[in-house]
């Protein structure tokens, strides 16, 4: 097994990644998609590094890379959120693996990376599987998750918790003004989405569930691509369960055994506890070996 650095092009930017090559590579390749804002390519990760070694032992190539504007890649991140995807980066990474002989692709995405995987799925014809770790089932910009959840409730509570008591002196302070403007933007966007959902024909789906998430997942399920969902009890599981009524539940039923849903204790993304990262690695490994015929490397 060797690990080597590489640069590849994606949507006009040069992205940096590291590729782990087995001694005897097979046709299956894995692209790892970290959450937003992480330096991914050069890290010695308690989750990814051992998993990459295990996968290489059965002939699977893996590629980890930095999104545009992060780590050693070029470009500017600009706006980042669960409704602004980096699908072009994912397609560039998959193309890079394809040029090395990979003809079946598994995307493993964490949080924002999971949404990127879903967003890119319909542009990857030879997609063989998806691992979605704590995917966001709502749409919001980075750092606005809690505020968006609050905005789905009472407007009064949102304003009092998000902004505090309004005072005339706030208008003289640029930081306070920016805070009020930010809160108002989140509130307006969330309420508009809810209003739009109310006038659509109802299928029981809660109004806050991301339509792009459901649409992309529908496409994947219709193609028969196996999917592993992994949630932490502290990140995403509650939201996923609440999102089930309506379309999501129908998708789970339709997928049948092609969709596996697992829940681990604690958090599974960001700075997860070391035992959780090990358990997550084991879970992905078991799913990979059960889902694909892997060689001996």
């Amino acid at each position, binding site marked *: 097994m060797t690990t080597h650095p590489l640069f590849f092009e994606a949507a006009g930017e040069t992205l940096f990644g590291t590729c782990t090559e087995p001694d005897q590579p097979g046709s299956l390749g894995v692209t790892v998609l970290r959450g937003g804002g992480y330096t991914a390519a050069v890290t010695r990760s*308690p989750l990814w590094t051992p998993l990459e070694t295990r996968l290489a032992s059965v002939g699977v190539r893996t590629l980890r890379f930095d999104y545009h504007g992060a780590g050693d890649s070029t470009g500017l991140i600009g706006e980042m959120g669960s409704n602004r995807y980096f699908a072009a980066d994912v397609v560039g990474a998959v193309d890079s693996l394809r040029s090395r002989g990979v003809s079946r692709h598994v995307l493993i995405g964490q949080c924002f990376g999971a949404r990127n995987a879903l967003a890119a799925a319909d542009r990857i014809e030879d997609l063989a599987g998806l691992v979605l770790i704590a995917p966001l089932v709502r749409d919001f910009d980075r750092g606005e998750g809690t505020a968006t959840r609050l905005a789905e409730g009472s407007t009064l509570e949102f304003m009092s918790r998000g902004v505090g008591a309004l005072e005339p002196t706030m208008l003289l302070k640029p930081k306070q003004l920016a805070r009020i403007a930010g809160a108002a933007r989140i509130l307006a966007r969330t309420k508009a989405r809810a209003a739009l959902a109310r006038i659509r024909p109802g299928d029981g789906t809660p109004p806050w569930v991301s339509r792009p998430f459901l649409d992309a997942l529908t496409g994947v399920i219709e193609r028969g691509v196996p999917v592993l969902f992994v949630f932490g009890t502290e990140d995403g599981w509650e939201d996923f369960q609440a999102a089930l009524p309506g379309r999501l539940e129908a998708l789970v039923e339709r997928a049948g055994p092609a969709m596996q849903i697992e829940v681990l204790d604690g958090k599974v993304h960001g700075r997860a506890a070391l035992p959780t990262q090990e358990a997550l690695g084991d879970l992905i490994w078991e799913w990979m070996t059960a889902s694909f015929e892997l060689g001996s490397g």
Partner: protein
Amino acid sequence: MSPGAGAVRQAEGFLEEADLVGPGLFGHRYLPDQPSGTGVVICSPIYAEYFKNYRREVLLARALAAAGAAVQRFQYRNTGLSDDVPGGMTVASMTDDADAAAGALAERCRPDRMILMGVRWGGIVAARAAVRRGGAPLVLWDPVIDPAGYLADIIRVRQVQELTSGADKRHSGSDLVTMLENEGSLVVLDYLIERDLHRSVAPIDVPRLISEAASEAALVLQVSRRSELAEDLALVAAGWQDAGVEVTASSTGHEEAWWFEADRFETEENKMLTRLLIDQTVAWVENLGADR
């Protein structure tokens, strides 16, 4: 990590390479199309501070290369894509790595002048590497002057972690120091703090080391809201001046939460602190080259 360079020509006029710098030592190198004759080796901070500063170092390296300086970044052995170091990472192994990185850059582009740069803990490494070379121009961003205080700050991060995560048992600072001593390591967030690294720096008189490391010129940028330099940093700067080193020392006026995520995401390129650090460093390196 195996050899097998990734390389790309960047539009700003330099070649960027990623490969082994020396045996088991991975790094990124930036080679300008029109070299100014200056080489810069960047010694990174460690733990969470490494990731906090990562993009900033990439941007700095590219800005320096666009201005004609050849730059070498590297990952200490026992970290990232570099190999393990027998016996674990110590300040001696880190100095060996910085030395190897400087040697590799010198061999590749034969600069007239080699600048050693260090960020936080990397300041100690850069200073030791400079001493090995008989002194060198130094650039230090918010250097660690008091390693014991630095470790105490990390211990406090663990205490904050225990407090905010609702841990069943909360430890006092002295409990955690004892755990580190007895068990050899301590997990803070998900970083492994290793006793032997911190023991390895204990015999070093860091202010004296840094004072003796600079030759010709030194730039030190304090990352703090305070406008005046901290006392220990001011003493180091005074020591340099007494030794005839041309000193540029200032505070950025901006703080950095080295161990914690910001409430709101901001693109690194847009951060005022990042722009200040990079602009001042590039200007200083250019001036140093122009003074030759």
